[in-house]
């Protein structure tokens, strides 16, 4: 099969390249779904980012491949003022834009493109604000409209951001997908021609691959952008074969119909690891799955009840049944791969007797009735919420707590949980920018505890919250680490959650693949990947 693939690719390359390339390298990635479109700022799913921002675009700063550390991107350096209110980016010179069938760039990347990329998302009066969609989810969710006072062009290669308040995670936000830089020249050209909707269907970026064609729900084809600012990728043709079923992805990987696949079935992992042609890369993801207790509803306002449930559930059984080989037990609200993770915190052991004792102390010797909400969809941090709920239900039954399983359609579920309609609900989180604030403040801070906020435990505990707010104020990483460590100790004691697991992400790849690095954000990038 591989020789047929090479032969076919060679024939194709000859036909395309006029015969001067000896054998073009094609990498096929079996992706798990179709992208929504090719403009990252209006998308929220990893699937869309994998197909748009990762291959086609670049950002001012980037996450180092395989880590959450920030490195220079389209900006070679940046300085912040003492008060943390203003950031100046010095832009890279000589960055070329891609040439496609619609567009031939007449100039290199410069400050105009940066201004445009953010104006499109922030300025309602900008004609591009509404194109394709006006829902710039991440820009809004990261609070950018409130945070960014102004963006100014100092000169062709210098841009200054002025903030309304010091926000240490701001730099990390600039590495996120919504902050991808788009081409002002292309935009102007399309607007003049009266076809703005092509911008997001036939995109132009500065990234390592340019889009050649997209066959809906079937295949996406990219070709290497040789003049990219990072240099030419080792792969000449990048193909995404859209394969929603994990068993089918595995079968294709085995047949070398694709070389890299995401989201394997946990049940297939042993077979993959045993296969000599496949190597399984793994890395703990930047995520957490948890069961939240609605602390505004009885009896969950009593710390003892929350702790009792922590003692009553067999975490190990859940990990074996639902996350076999793909999860590590979670004890803190942030994952171990994140800086400031407090490993000294002790988790609650599995102890049903102690649970019953605590319940008796809390005045509930015969247990009580409650609901237990589970998500109807697979999430990166939770492969099977249904199964987890069933296991928990069985454990809780043994200490006298009768849990009724409840679920809603995903959008409905999230909305109701955020409103606080539940008593106990499963949920989770995948980090956006690698900053602990992104987990703890968003999920457990007082500001998010109001109805509609992401703190579904509706838990507002001043000592905890104060630590988080202080950590936002200072850019000093050492000081912030100390504050977050203390916060985790308080969290464990007060137990607003039963922390379930951090999903380990596994990427099975063919043995011929070299240089592929897993991103902690669960994204898939192919620059720097080569085939032997």
């Amino acid at each position: 099969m591989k020789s047929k693939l090479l032969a076919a690719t060679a024939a194709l390359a000859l036909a395309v390249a006029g015969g001067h390339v000896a054998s073009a390298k094609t990498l096929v990635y079996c992706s798990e779904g179709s992208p929504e479109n090719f403009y990252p700022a209006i998308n929220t799913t990893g699937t869309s980012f994998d197909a748009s921002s990762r291959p086609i675009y670049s950002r001012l700063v980037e996450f180092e491949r395989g880590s959450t550390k920030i490195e220079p991107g389209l900006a070679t350096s940046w300085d912040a003022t003492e008060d943390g209110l203003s950031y100046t980016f010095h832009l890279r010179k000589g960055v070329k834009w891609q040439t496609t069938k619609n567009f031939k760039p007449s100039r290199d990347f410069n400050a105009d493109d940066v201004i445009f990329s953010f104006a499109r998302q922030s300025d309602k009066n900008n004609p591009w604000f509404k194109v394709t969609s006006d829902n710039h989810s991440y820009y809004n969710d990261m609070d950018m409209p409130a945070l960014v006072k102004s963006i100014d062009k100092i000169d062709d290669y210098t841009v200054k951001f002025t903030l309304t308040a010091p926000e240490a995670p701001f730099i990390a936000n600039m590495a996120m997908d919504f902050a991808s830089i788009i081409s002002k020249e292309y935009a102007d050209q399309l607007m003049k021609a009266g076809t703005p909707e092509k911008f997001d269907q036939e995109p132009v970026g500065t990234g390592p691959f340019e889009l050649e064609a997209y066959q809906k729900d079937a295949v996406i084809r990219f070709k290497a952008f040789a003049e990219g600012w990072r240099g030419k990728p080792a792969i000449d043709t990048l193909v995404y074969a859209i394969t929603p079923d994990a068993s089918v992805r595995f079968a294709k990987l085995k047949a070398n119909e694709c070389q890299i696949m995401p989201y394997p079935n946990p049940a297939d992992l042993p077979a993959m690891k045993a296969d000599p042609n496949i190597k399984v890369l793994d890395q703990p993801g930047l995520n957490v799955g948890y069961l939240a207790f609605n602390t505004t509803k009885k009896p969950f306002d009593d710390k003892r009840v929350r702790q009792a449930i922590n003692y009553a559930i067999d975490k190990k059984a859940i990990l074996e049944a639902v996350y076999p080989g793909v999860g590590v037990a979670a004890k803190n609200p942030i994952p171990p791969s994140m800086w400031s993770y407090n490993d000294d915190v002790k988790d609650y052991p599995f102890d049903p007797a102690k649970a019953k004792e605590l319940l008796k102390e809390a005045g509930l010797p015969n247990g009580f009735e409650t609901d237990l909400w589970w998500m109807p969809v697979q999430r990166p941090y939770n492969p099977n919420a249904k199964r987890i709920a069933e296991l928990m239900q069985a454990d809780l039954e043994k200490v006298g707590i009768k849990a009724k399983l409840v679920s809603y359609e995903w959008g409905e579920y999230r909305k109701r949980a955020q409103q606080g309609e539940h008593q106990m609900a499963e949920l989770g989180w995948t980090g956006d920018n690698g900053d602990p604030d992104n987990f703890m403040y968003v999920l457990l801070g007082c500001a998010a505890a109001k109805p509609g906020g992401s703190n579904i435990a509706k838990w507002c505990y001043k000592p905890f919250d104060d630590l988080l707010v202080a950590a936002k104020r200072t850019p000093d990483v050492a000081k912030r680490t100390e504050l977050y460590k203390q916060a985790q100790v308080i969290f464990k004691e007060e137990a607003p959650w039963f922390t379930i697991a951090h999903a380990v992400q596994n990427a099975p790849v063919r043995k011929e693949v070299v240089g592929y690095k897993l991103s902690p954000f669960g994204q898939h990038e192919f620059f720097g990947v080569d085939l032997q």
Partner: protein
Amino acid sequence: MLRFFFTRLALVIPTFIGITLLAFLLIHAVPGDPIETLAGERGIPAERHAELLHEYGFDRPLYVQYVAYIEHVLRGDLGRSLITHERVIAEFTQLFPATIELSLSAMLFAVLLGLPAGILAAAKRNSVLDHGVMAISVTGYSMPIFWWGLLAILLFSNTWHLTPVSGRIDAAYFPDPVTGFLLIDSLLSDQEGAFRSAVSHLILPTIVLGTIPLAVIARMTRSSMLEVLGEDYIRTARAKGLAPSLVVGVHALRNALIPVITVIGLFVGSLFAGAILTETIFSWPGVGKWLVEAINRRDYPVLQGGVLLLGCSVMAVNVLVDVLYGFINPRIRHTQ
């Protein structure tokens, strides 16, 4: 003949209105807020929610929405997907050829195997062949497609490596989408091996989707043939000394085929239904899979558009079949 054709065509209009009403009403009764679905773990603040609600028109009274909907449909505007923001009609036209290709080849498979099987079984009634055909047939139409598909993949692709696993064509080939039908496009392109790849990818889904029609066609053909073979005029033909194969072939076959053609026509609807499951299992990028995803994601416009377009397609085929039937069987034309 023409009058029959136009009468038949006229019946289309109430059916069409019925389909649009059905699509429109059913979907608006669905719970779950489509605006909410678009956010992941985050939420949409109330003002934004109201904005979006107004923009998409979900806050207007139902009948106003329906009239607006019909207006748009007649102009060819079926709205935009809430997820991809692409025009629904554009998405449908991109995906429908894949479903047609699969359904057509499944039907071809069913007819090419089913007809001869049925005829032979009838000709050799109560023989081992007959019982064999009937047994396989019953198994065939009792088969749950979704299970059969999984088994087929397990056996033919994973264990015996006879067929590729999923998709329409090997990722190395990318024929220009001239017609949307990969079999044609791959032939038109100058990529070596593309056609072969397209064919090999089509085999397993065809077999799985075509199993039930195959079973039913075989049965129907057999019973239809048996009925006809027992008719008086056949016995007369035999008595006259005509060769048996001629008897069977010419007289019996033509009359036996008529109900079979009706069945084939009726099958279009069930083929599209079966395609939903088959496309899901084989990752076949057609409209069945598209619709199932739309339901899960509460993509209203896609649901409406898909239901409408699919319904109309089936309706069109039914009309075609009726007209063909009327053409073949003159008695029907005049009793309508």
